[in-house]
């Protein structure tokens, strides 16, 4: 039976509909990626599914319980790691996990044992008795994740688990999520990083402005788009001319910055010579050329008309290298 069922879920804040009529079904043991830009409604949706926020319309069941009518049962069945890691800087990591165990109704001795196990699992044993305020961002996320697992929940909610982390910490979290999933935990994660959705998720829901604009496996979504595109880096000032030359050859896509032209072609690599020749004949110098296969960003552009990420944002996003 599905781990999460969402039907016509809505949330209005005063006049604004942050989430409008979304439908989701997540099977047990699945990793579901909720992908969208900031402000799309991801966090609002997660807060509704984790009983922190009341929907203003529609319904949802998590682990077989209605989020509104059986909130308490839902809370016993889910683990949550929110975007703002809800940590107390004055507590130690060990104390936090033990507190979480108590909150979940786990007897003291067993809670201690589980805390020890989890700290080892997320590699925080050395820092376990230091105050959380001394932890790096990556360590805090790992701790948050460990705490969310203390009661062995059936469904795990991760709201932007790697935002602000450096690439190494990000990979660590990904590995942990995969390991959890291998053990049978259903994972509902939200992200603004398409690589994360691509890598981790079995199913992806793309959300924009409160609506789901596309849903499916990463492969099926990309296959829908079909065609790869050629990315050309041109000399400054030649973009407009180049675009008018290439318009008859392929479909122009919105450029990511002022010196690149993106054109979608039907025959992939085979169309490269055509493109190069056309530009050459017009005397436009091409500084770099790349054949780019469809990504989830392309899916996003197709559905919404704008990019999910600016190019190079991934690396710019990184936090200082974590300890």
């Amino acid at each position: 039976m599905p781990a999460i069922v969402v039907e016509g879920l809505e949330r209005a804040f005063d006049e604004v509909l942050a989430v409008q009529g979304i439908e989701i079904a997540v099977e047990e043991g699945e990793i579901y990626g909720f992908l969208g830009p900031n402000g799309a409604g991801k966090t609002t949706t997660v807060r509704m599914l984790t009983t922190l926020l009341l929907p203003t319309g529609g319904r949802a069941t998590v682990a077989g319980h209605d989020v509104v009518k059986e909130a308490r049962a839902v809370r016993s069945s889910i683990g949550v790691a929110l975007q703002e890691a809800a940590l107390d800087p004055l507590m130690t990591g060990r104390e936090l996990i033990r507190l979480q165990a108590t909150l979940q109704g786990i007897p003291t001795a067993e809670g201690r044992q589980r805390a020890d196990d989890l700290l080892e699992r997320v590699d925080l044993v050395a820092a376990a008795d230091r105050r959380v305020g001394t932890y790096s961002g990556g360590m805090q996320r790992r701790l948050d994740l460990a705490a969310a697992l203390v009661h062995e929940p059936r469904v795990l909610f991760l709201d932007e688990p790697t935002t602000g982390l450096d690439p190494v910490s990000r990979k660590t979290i990904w590995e942990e999520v995969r390991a959890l999933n291998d053990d049978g935990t259903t994972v509902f994660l939200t992200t603004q990083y398409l690589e994360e959705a691509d890598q981790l998720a079995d199913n992806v829901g793309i959300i924009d402005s409160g609506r789901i604009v596309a849903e499916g496996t990463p492969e099926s979504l990309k296959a829908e788009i079909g065609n790869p595109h050629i990315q050309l880096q041109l000399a400054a000032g030649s973009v407009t001319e180049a675009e008018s030359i290439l318009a008859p050859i392929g479909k122009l896509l919105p450029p990511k910055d002022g010196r690149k032209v993106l054109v979608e072609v039907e025959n992939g690599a085979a169309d490269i010579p055509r493109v190069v020749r056309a530009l050459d004949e017009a005397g436009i110098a091409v500084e770099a050329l790349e054949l780019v296969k469809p990504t989830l960003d392309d899916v996003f552009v197709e559905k919404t008309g704008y990019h999910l990420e600016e190019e190079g944002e991934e690396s710019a996003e990184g936090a200082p290298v974590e300890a």
Partner: protein
Amino acid sequence: MEAAVALPAWRTNLATIGALMARAKNELIRVPGAAIPGVLAPTIFFLGLNGVFGALTQLNGFSTGSYESFIVPVSMLQGAGFTGAAAGVNLARDIEQGWLDRLLVSPAPRWVLLAGTVLAASARSLIPATFVFAIALALGAGWPGLDGLLVTFVMVAAMAAVAACWGAFLALRFRSQSAAPLMQAGMMALILTTTAYAPLALLQGWLQDIARVNPVTDVVEAARQGFVGGVTWAATWPGLMALIGMLVLLGALALREMRRMGR
């Protein structure tokens, strides 16, 4: 899923309240100097009021010649009010920083979460109360007797709980630490518009009227008993009733707001 060995709900709730109180003590123990403001404020008031208005005991109507004895229970209650309001500020901070989400997402009942905050404040109020009491004794306040002392400290702890409910109510309502002055001022006004400075007969008209209807007047009188005379049940139970009444009212308001988080 659920815990491997399911505990009866009351044991889980008790353990949760204990864990939340243990967390609350961290601020006192792990932040150097955190306890000082809570102790300093009532002490300054005690010493200051005593130095300034001490001569009032010469007036007819005072049953004691020692103003220290007269106002030390007020200062102890002020400390309780301050401590409870501080608990409200901490809760507001927890809300702002997202910590409360962790508690709200857990299966712990809302009243348990509130109880953790309130009982922690009660326990914490014993610190400034003891300090002010010690200073008062050193300055010549009369020994209230063990029964008087017990009554006073019970009043203090309960007053702190009342103040914590008030602070929690504001914190949950406004979800911001900027409500802090209202938490503090509210309690100060409540405690001082009583027979704090002088017996009822000597209060000026308007303050006398307020003090008559203010439930905290009964609390002040009950807490003061041992210091100015003997302890009787007749003078104690109105204070207890007042505290219970305020706890029920403010506690209900705070619980209602806690339940409405996210609504």
